[in-house]
């Protein structure tokens, strides 16, 4: 099977090859979703709700219709099925998600109400401004903890709890009775953040020659064509989604963005329609990362043995569930971090509020938890007066251990190895003689799943064939969002088929023409599609070998660097000759195959146990050296080291890029980024108000890639997309706490200068 592939001498795998897509991108030759133009194209602009909770009394479009250039106003009544349903936990509960257009009760500021279609973007914008919506404002709820109270305003009739997950291991109640135990309880909070990909949500939709509703748009999931078919009440084989290179996703293009609006507009007008969301509407109304309130209770023996851990997590789901059930599940699974603890109780819940919905964002709930578990471990070590590094090492899970959920960790756990590398590289904290500066050092060790939970029956298909000139075509429905998704698949095919990398061409991201591969999310694409390509390439190579033997005899065939077959007797056969021979044998050199991930039973939420949750985890350690200015509270990151075991690095340059990118996105999360809302109204709706890191504030990053050869992906690779961001915020929090000295710690993100200054001044940072 796929996992047994480990060619002794690899020629393309493990090489930092230059990605062809990068060459095209740097040349400005890639046409992204917003760059597509069609004859007679119209433009769409959404009208969004102004209130976070209100009854829509009346919608008047009379004035908008008279705006020159306005072609059509599309409202709820124009949509065949104006409601999306989903089973986000995957356990068979159908949840009513958002409407295409809200026509009754607005639940968040920015919720789409109607769509103006016009001949120019300016006319569409003018038309949208001319739409009059009469609201009856209603009282709203914005704090998820308030939303859990008995008398809370209900966001949806069924109650404000979207989902509650439980994990139970051992017997916490009994274990914590020992009066000699040291107990600490701490609450950690995280904030709303935005993906802030550089490419806004965009696309063009049209109805093609055969009546197929076709959307060329920025998405992480081409399978959304099925949702569109349901919305239009047409057959799934009448909708097609084409996904060109995406200008960044990070989970923000996992839920649908422009798709339903392009589809309904093209369907009704029968003309091509373009829509590009403004940056400001993206910041205001697009789903964000879940803010978490995490309360950790930890009990340990005075000697430094952890006995029990309780974790209570509340995530703000905002007004609609979207992927919240899955996000809070990932949070529950890794709540105890990469530590072996005998007695565990975890409760994690997602709660509806009248805030903007929250959903997928790189790290998907699991990364927020690292801000909790890596601080509580540090704080306990401090309380016990023992070395926090040794304290961690003592409790690291090992291969073969039972995790908190009851599942067995069945691959290598290189926590010690990554930690050693980081400590070695960071060295000792330098001493500063500048009295206004304090230096701190901090680390964080984390685990992050890759792949979807096992009861989702995840699968990915591809189609691989040899062309008559000996080149190779790989067709795969993978959306390429910039991480080299297509390029790494080409490397895998080239390696197994013994052809030069340039001989493989990937066609990707088209729901009609490329076999479905599932979305690019959950750090699943290398694992899933990588294994699918391994399987297809092995089958294709077997066919090629068969043709060689049938046509030219069993001659101990081998392959040279140019991709020619040569025999012990001196024959040299080109792949185009093999193609011709195969044709004559009526033996097509084409393979369509599907890789099925390890699957398993649904989660037992009553018992809080699982045989398996996620296919596997990626482990790693990050370390930071920071300088805190005690007069202003500002933090400067002096050094940053990040190490992960990636199993095998398919393209080390791309792996390094994922780590660098994850670290900087994580540094923004740790130190500066926050989307601020006041009663559900976004007050940071300008790009310039959202403090994402630019180059000058960021340090060089030392990325140390380790290879245990024990991942579950192709060639034993592990995923690295999401794992790279998880350790950053806790590493920084620990470094800042280390700089500030005993009893000073900022337990809420972002760790701003104001909060640090508050800690130093003896004020409660959370109140500033």
């Amino acid at each position, binding site marked *: 099977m796929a996992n047994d592939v480990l060619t002794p001498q690899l020629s393309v795998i493990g090489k930092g090859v230059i990605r062809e897509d990068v060459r095209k991108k740097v*040349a400005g030759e890639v046409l992204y979703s917003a760059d597509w133009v069609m004859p007679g194209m119209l433009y769409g602009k959404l009208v969004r709700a102004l209130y976070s909770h209100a009854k829509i009394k009346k919608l008047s479009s009379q004035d908008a219709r008279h705006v020159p250039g306005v072609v059509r106003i599309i409202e709820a009544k124009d949509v065949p099925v104006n409601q999306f349903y989903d089973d986000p936990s995957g356990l068979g509960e159908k949840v009513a998600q958002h409407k295409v257009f809200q026509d009754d009760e607005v639940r968040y500021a920015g919720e789409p109400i109607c769509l103006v279609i016009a001949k120019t973007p300016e006319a569409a914008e003018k038309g949208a401004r001319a739409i009059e919506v009469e609201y009856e404002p209603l009282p709203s709820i914005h704090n998820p903890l308030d939303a859990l109270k008995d008398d809370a305003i209900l966001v949806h009739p069924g109650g404000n709890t979207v989902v509650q997950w439980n994990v139970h291991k051992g017997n916490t109640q009994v274990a914590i009775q020992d009066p000699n135990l040291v107990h600490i309880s701490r609450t950690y909070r995280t904030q709303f953040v935005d993906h802030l990909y550089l490419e806004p949500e965009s696309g063009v939709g049209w109805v093609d020659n055969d009546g197929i509703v076709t959307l060329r748009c920025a998405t992480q999931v081409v399978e959304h064509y099925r949702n569109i078919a349901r919305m239009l009440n047409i057959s799934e084989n009448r909708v097609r989604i084409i996904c060109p290179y995406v200008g960044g996703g990070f989970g923000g293009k996992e839920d649908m963005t422009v798709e339903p609006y392009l589809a309904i507009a093209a369907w009704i007008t029968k003309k091509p329609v373009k829509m590009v969301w403004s940056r400001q509407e993206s910041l205001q109304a697009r789903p964000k990362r879940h803010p978490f309130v995490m309360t950790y209770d930890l009990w340990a023996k005075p000697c430094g043995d952890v006995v029990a851990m309780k974790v209570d997590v509340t995530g703000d789901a905002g007004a609609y569930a979207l992927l919240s059930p899955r996000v809070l599940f990932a949070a529950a699974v890794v709540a105890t971090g990469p530590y072996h603890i005998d007695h565990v109780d975890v409760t994690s819940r997602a709660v509806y509020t009248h805030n903007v919905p929250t959903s997928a964002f790189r790290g998907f709930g699991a990364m927020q938890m690292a801000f909790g578990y890596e601080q509580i471990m540090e704080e306990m070590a401090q309380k016990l007066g023992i070395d926090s590094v040794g304290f961690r090492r003592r409790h690291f899970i090992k291969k073969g251990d039972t995790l908190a959920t009851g599942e067995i960790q069945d691959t290598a756990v290189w926590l010690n190895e990554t930690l050693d590398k980081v400590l070695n590289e960071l060295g000792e904290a330098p001493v500063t003689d500048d009295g206004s500066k304090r230096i701190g050092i901090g680390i964080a060790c984390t685990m992050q799943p890759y792949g979807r939970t096992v009861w989702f029956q995840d699968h990915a298909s591809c189609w691989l064939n040899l062309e008559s000139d000996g080149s190779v075509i790989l067709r795969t429905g993978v959306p390429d969002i910039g991480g080299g998704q297509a390029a790494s698949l080409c490397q895998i095919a080239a390696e197994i088929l013994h052809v030069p990398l340039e001989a493989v061409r990937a066609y990707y991201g088209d729901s009609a023409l490329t076999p479905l591969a599932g979305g690019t999310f959950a750090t699943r694409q290398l694992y899933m599609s990588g294994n699918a390509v391994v399987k297809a390439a092995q089958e294709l190579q077997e066919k090629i070998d068969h043709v060689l033997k049938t046509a030219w005899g069993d001659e101990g065939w081998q392959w040279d660097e140019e991709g020619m077959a040569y025999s012990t007797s001196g024959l040299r056969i080109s792949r185009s000759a093999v193609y011709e021979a195969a044709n004559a044998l009526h033996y097509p050199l084409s393979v369509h195959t599907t890789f099925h991930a390890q699957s398993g039973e649904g989660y037992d939420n009553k018992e809080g146990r699982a045989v398996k949750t996620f296919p596997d985890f990626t482990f790693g350690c990050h370390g930071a050296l920071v300088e805190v200015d005690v007069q202003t509270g500002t933090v400067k990151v002096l050094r940053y080291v990040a190490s992960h075991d990636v199993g095998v690095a398919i393209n080390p340059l*791309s792996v390094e*890029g994922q780590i660098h990118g994850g670290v900087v996105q994580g540094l923004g999360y740790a130190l500066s980024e926050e989307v601020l809302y006041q009663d559900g109204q976004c007050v940071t709706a300008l790009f310039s108000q959202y403090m994402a890191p630019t*180059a000058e504030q960021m340090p060089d990053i030392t990325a140390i890639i380790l290879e245990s050869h024990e991942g579950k992906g192709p060639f034993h690779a592990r995923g690295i997309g999401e794992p790279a961001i998880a350790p950053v915020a806790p590493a920084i929090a620990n470094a800042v706490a280390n700089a500030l000295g005993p009893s000073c710690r900022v337990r809420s993100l972002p760790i701003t200068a104001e909060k640090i200054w508050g800690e130093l001044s003896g004020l409660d940072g959370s109140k500033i």
Partner: protein
Amino acid sequence: MQVEFQFNDERAICDIAGHETLLAVLRDKLGAMEVKYGCGEGACGSCVVLVDGNPLASCITLCASVDGSDIMSVKAPDPPGAWALLKDRFAAHEGAQCGFCTPGLLASCFALVQRGEKLTRQEIREALSGHLCRCTGYHHIVDAVEEAMAIWPTMS
């Protein structure tokens, strides 16, 4: 009104309204899709082009103000080879992932490299602080620019 300027060494004559931005004219009238809309506030750097050699955010530049100017994007003809050098080093170091910020970023890099700047890594970071990249973490970008600066102009 009518404006006339050079765009990538070709003469462009456009009838525009006074409020039209350079970004809108380059994309919608001249089909220069390599110039990207990222924020519309002049804050992300994706729309940067060179106006008479200086990097400018085209989304907050009125097209009327560039009358008579010489404008370049990443697709400009490149006899001296500075664009080619930068593109090659960006590809070799994977200084782009999703690539959306890249054409604008390269315009600023071009301005630095072409005038022979030899900057430290931190100075390169400061010089590029008008550009936001959300994928790469900047490290590979700095690698690419540092190398391009070291090579230029000896390679031409």
